[in-house]
């Protein structure tokens, strides 16, 4: 029973949070100078006053802001994200079109970063002052400190321009038809550099975190007990220690999902990856309010859901955590 009530209350909390995010986004988006009609006029090389007025009234931009917000909220609640001002396409279609690309990028990088990062962290915790540990440390610091876009550009210069083994940008070859196994290989080939760029940052964080947590746990009494029982080093490390040490990493992983989405904006822009992040970024430049709000709404939904999932994961990993 407790679990059900817990879930329902979390659901309401999540919904309220998403609503607050929508309102806040709406206010922020409209605070930027200039409006979409000016962008469309710019893309057109000029436009008459009448036409601008007509466009403004069609998009409802001539109404007071609170009224516009009301209309938008009613739309969102009824599941309609509206039409893009710039492309005249349904925002939900545009998001649906971009989600797979972002998901592929984010999941690949986070999973890779989590697996490799944790492994590196554990390895370096075994001999905290060894050569391996020190090199992993240096690598993590560099990955953590280097700006994402700069990493991306460096990778492009080295691995796409000087030694052209990977494509410069995009998700598929330019002449790709998007069908068959050749297409899968093509996408994987294009995925390497962007996911490496995005993954490096998180890899650094996970390896630092898991190293610290492991060091902490390895000093605990129950590890000594386990060792005293004569368990093998592998079982001690991976079954007894890691299970406890991985908790903070999972917390961060869940919390960071929002951050990863933010990082994806940069990586998608650098690599011209056709995902949500790039759509959001370009929508800001175009003052394409419905598209931008739609993407932000969708991302906030993802973050809220991911946080709930993290909480649930907690309970699976550490049964001591209950509805407290």
């Amino acid at each position: 029973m407790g679990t059900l009530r817990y879930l329902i209350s979390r659901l309401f909390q999540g919904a309220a949070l998403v609503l607050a995010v929508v309102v806040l986004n709406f206010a922020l988006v409209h605070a930027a100078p200039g409006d979409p009609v000016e962008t469309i006029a710019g893309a057109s090389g000029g436009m008459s006053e009448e036409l601008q007025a007509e466009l403004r009234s069609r998009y409802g931009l001539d109404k007071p802001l609170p009224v516009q917000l009301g209309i938008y909220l009613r739309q969102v609640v009824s599941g309609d994200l509206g039409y893009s001002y710039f492309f005249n396409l349904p925002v939900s279609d545009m998001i649906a079109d971009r989600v797979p690309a972002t998901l592929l990028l984010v999941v690949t990088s986070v999973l890779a970063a989590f697996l490799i990062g944790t492994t590196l962290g554990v390895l370096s915790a075994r001999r905290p002052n060894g050569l391996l540990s020190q090199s992993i440390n240096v690598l993590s610091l560099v990955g953590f400190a280097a700006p994402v876009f700069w990493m991306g550009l460096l990778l492009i210069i080295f691995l796409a321009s000087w030694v052209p083994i990977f494509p410069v940008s995009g998700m598929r070859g330019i002449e790709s038809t998007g069908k068959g196994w050749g297409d899968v290989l093509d996408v994987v080939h294009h995925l390497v550099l962007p996911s490496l760029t995005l993954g490096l940052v998180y890899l650094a964080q996970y390896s630092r975190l898991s190293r610290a947590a492991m060091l902490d746990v390895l000093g605990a009494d129950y590890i000594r007990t386990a060792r005293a029982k004569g368990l093998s080093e592998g079982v001690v490390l991976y079954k007894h220690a890691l299970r406890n040490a991985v908790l903070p990493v999972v917390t961060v992983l869940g919390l960071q999902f929002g951050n990863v989405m933010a990082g994806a904006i940069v990586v998608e822009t650098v690599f011209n990856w056709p995902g949500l992040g790039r759509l959001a970024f370009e929508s800001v430049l175009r003052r394409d309010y419905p598209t931008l709000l739609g993407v932000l709404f969708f991302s906030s939904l993802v973050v809220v859901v991911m946080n709930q999932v993290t909480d649930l994961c907690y309970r699976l990993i550490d049964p001591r955590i209950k509805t407290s």
Partner: protein
Amino acid sequence: MAIFRTILRKVIPFALVAALPIYSSLVFAQAPKRGGTLVVGSTQALRHLNGAVQSGLATAVPGTQIFASPLRFDDKWNAQPYLAEKWALAADGKSLTLNLRKGAVFHDGKPITSEDVAFSIMAIKANHPFTTMMGPVEKVETPDPHTAIIRMSVPHPAIILAMSPALCPILPKHIYGDGTDLKIHPRNSVDVVGSGPFRLTEFKAGQRVVLERFDKYFLAGKPYLDKIIININPDSSNLMLGLERGEIQMIPYATNSTELKRFASNPTLNLTNKGFEGIGALNWLAFNTAKKPMSDVNVRKAIAMTIDKNFISKALHGGFSQPADGPIVASSPFAVPDVIRYPLDLKKSAELLDAAGYKAGANGERFKLTIDYLPGQDEQQKNVAEYVRAQLKKVGVTVEVRASADFPAWAKRMATRDFDMSMDAVFNWGDPIIGVHRTYLSTNIRPIVWTNTQSYTNPKVDDLLNTAGGLLDPTKRKAYYATFQKIVTDELPIHFINGTPYHTVSNKKVLNVPTTIWGPVSPYDEVSFK
């Protein structure tokens, strides 16, 4: 002398035309090869593909492949038959008769008739952002399926250039005339149907456009390419790498001198600055003449005298741009060399400022100004603004360079007159009526970017432009524009800096890169691979 000129103008071209078949049979003994995919790189995302309601280069590049227009133009501003076999502008300049080609069909197989032409022209008049282009059109008569007569309220010679591929796409009435508002018509981006050399097979917003050869194109045997892919990537250095790696074969509208230099030294690439006469892009410094001290013409002149256009072209633009001195681009038939110029002269500039009552204060400063610039074209805009700041410092004017986060932010400043000076880039768009008048007519002082945001007012200029716009005789028309160009460069609401150094960069394997006056925004039906 006149007879010689007549010979030059009339006889020689005929002789050349007469000789052309022999010449061409020698050169083009082999027909261009069929086949191949042309990948075009572009930094600009297009909204949709319907050029009747959306102007701008981004839509026009694919738009002119999908939609055919009544006329097209060669590289010397001469109209050529396209959907119209013959055309005639009436002696009073108030009607244009188009005789349409017979047997031409749309991509869905339906025939093209005068009804479609009439529908399209009225749709353009009602929806296209350039209202002066079809403004005087009252109606289009369709006496038979292959004749369309455009009736206008006043003589309107610009109607000929308005028949260009980028400005007058002929839409199938049976699809776009269904009553849906054309600006948001779903078929603007999905299942687009035109009659041009290529038909749309894929449009991914902000990513790519894929076009395939239309087999029933009304010009038999053309086009030569099988496919055109327009690859959109906002990062021009990514496109550059793609071109160098051979993944992209053509990039139109390249301006960056570092990139152009790199392209020029690449033996696999060709570079041309032909094909941009029609759009006529100018890079200029605009003054807010409604605001002190810019309202004083002598202050504007003093500022102009601090600017060395040759330095800008040679040093800032790597020698790729040409200085511009007037409101009409040098390549236009209406441009005249007789304009007022302002050679670099810091001493005279200081004297002018003294005389205008702006003497230097104790700290050597006369007054403070701001300069804005269009974001996203740093070499043409931001760097010139920085240079202007440094130059004005030398005559005691402190300039603050104001960045704008993005286009709408800058456009807002222009529209609300929140500026002293701003760099700007504006297109002539072929006929002065379309792209030049708008900047100088006092009746076009509007709270909108790319109108007369300089608040420049001179009744004589209004008269000159309004009269010139209705003159059919090109020589007479040019005389009016000559006076206009002299007045504007004397009163200086805008100080012209340079022509935007647009280039088309292409792989050497690509033959017949479009270099007519509309260049990359005209049909690629003669482009082929080696």
